[in-house]
């Protein structure tokens, strides 16, 4: 007999992917004032996958729980998650503090234990810090199997088969629940939340807690000394013909 799935989807609030970030005046980070924030695109894909698993296997999924660790405003993306199809949510309010992946993984481990989750689906990376670490760390802390960069997820009983995007192609891994899966772009196309569902989401549970409620102390191990603009490329030239393009390439010895 297969066990019921209790899926945890960790989601992060990040600067919207379409916005070009600007470095702040003190060179300590990226300007966040007056900037549009959204759900990290990979987290959106993870949420979508959880909802599809629930829709495609009527009685298989007991609950989808979405959790976010961030400022009070991160409740906006949790509302979005509820509107899309999450059942319950937790916001771990840490204020404006940037929390490193190891701390995030430690907090998520506690939430896994609290929610009795047996499947964690999360984005492969957040598009702000680009770390690509949290899922693997959580799997390591729990000593669960992990499948990163998933482009296809198939669940049969307590066996999970995942096709992963790897350098040079793809591979297929299989593991038994419980496990951690991180999503790649190609896994699915996330849905939009409809207005009636957005209204309904306002009545769904959104629990607000602090890291200390979970007995986790957030301690930064890395220190960001400065954040700078990458070197700008020198302005290039425009050519009018293929012949001119070839002669320029020869001139700079590129061919």
């Amino acid at each position: 007999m297969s066990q019921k799935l209790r899926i945890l989807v960790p989601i992060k609030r990040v600067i919207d992917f379409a916005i070009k970030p600007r470095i702040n005046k003190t060179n300590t980070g990226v300007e966040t004032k007056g900037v549009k924030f959204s759900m990290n695109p990979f987290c959106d894909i993870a949420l979508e996958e959880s909802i599809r698993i629930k829709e495609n296997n009527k009685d298989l999924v007991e609950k989808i729980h979405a959790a976010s660790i961030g400022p009070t405003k991160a409740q906006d993306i949790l509302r979005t998650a509820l509107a899309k199809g999450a059942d319950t949510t937790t916001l771990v309010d840490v204020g404006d503090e940037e929390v490193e992946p190891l701390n995030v993984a430690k907090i998520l481990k506690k939430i896994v234990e609290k929610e009795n989750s047996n499947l964690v689906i999360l984005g492969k990376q957040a598009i702000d810090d680009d770390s690509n670490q949290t899922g693997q760390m959580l799997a390591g802390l729990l000593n669960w199997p992990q499948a990163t960069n998933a482009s296809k997820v198939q669940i049969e009983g307590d066996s999970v088969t995942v096709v992963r995007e790897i350098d040079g192609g793809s591979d297929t891994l299989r593991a038994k629940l419980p496990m951690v899966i991180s999503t790649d772009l190609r896994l699915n196309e996330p849905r939009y939340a409809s207005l009636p569902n957005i209204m309904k989401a306002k009545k769904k549970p959104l629990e607000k807690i602090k890291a200390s409620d979970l007995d986790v102390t957030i301690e930064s191990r890395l220190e960001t000394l400065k954040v700078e603009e990458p070197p700008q490329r020198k302005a290039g030239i425009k050519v009018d013909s293929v012949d001119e393009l070839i002669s320029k390439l020869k001139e700079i010895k590129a061919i």
Partner: protein
Amino acid sequence: MSRFVRSIRHFGSSSFRLDSLVFIEGSAGKVNTASLSAVTAAAQIGKPITALVAGPEGEAIASEVGKINGIDKVLLAKGENYSHYLAEELSPLIKDVLEDSKFTHFITAATSVGKSVLPRVGALVDVQPISDLIKVESENTFVRPIYAGNALATVRSNEKLILASIRASAFAPTPVEGGSSSIEEFTPKSKAETSSEFVSEDLITSERPELGSAKRVVSGGRGLKNKETFEKLIEPLAAKLNAAIGASRVAVDSGFCDNSLQVGQTGKVVAPELYVAVGISGAIQHLAGMKDAKTIVAINKDPEAPIFNIADIGLVADINEAVPELVEKL
């Protein structure tokens, strides 16, 4: 049963003697180029380097690694269970090696294996790793891109053990020559307990050079319209230039070519001598994967395309005419 001979070290004040451990990936008896770049990064940290090779066919790779100048010692873990570089198997092995010899640094290339394994090791040894670094400032300070390469962060680790992955395109591969280090077998104390198993893999075979390490890359985007045009225009140009083929996300999502050819924040990051962008507008996510190329050429019919802001040489033209002409005249 082979025995690992533990080397005797003297700690105390001479902390500089403590080594860096570099994880080496290989296939078909050859060291992966990205791992050779990891050796270069480790050399810049300036401590003696031990290389770790794992897998049932590790002997050939270990003997290659032994020939690299600058590697002090090669550790070989031969187990069958390492054959597909599963993170669940490798992480406890790496933890054992790190703790056995009190390494100060662990470096791996940010390949799909490295990205999968490194954070799991971090969790096991309670260390926050540093991903995808592009510059070694000192033994504990590094530069890494954030926000799709739109910002560079200088990060200092205050951990006793530093775990890092390196962006291969930012470090020239160390040549396999000039060294003759010994190979020692390593048998881990503990065995991984996991239900994970490798089922199969589907690798794209191509006559073209490998995208991540190619000197030249020809990439196609939305402007190619379909798979047929992609193949008709991109392949001959890549063949003529002996270049690897790359693609934008739109081209991949629209099925013009395989996913593994995607260049960008979420795909491969390349820094070839020559990058030719054909029918690519230049979204920030794509630029993140190629803006460190030495020379960028853009061919696009839209003169306002953002790709022209970073291209060294731009040609505003219909790619259906310009690319065949370019192939013919090269």
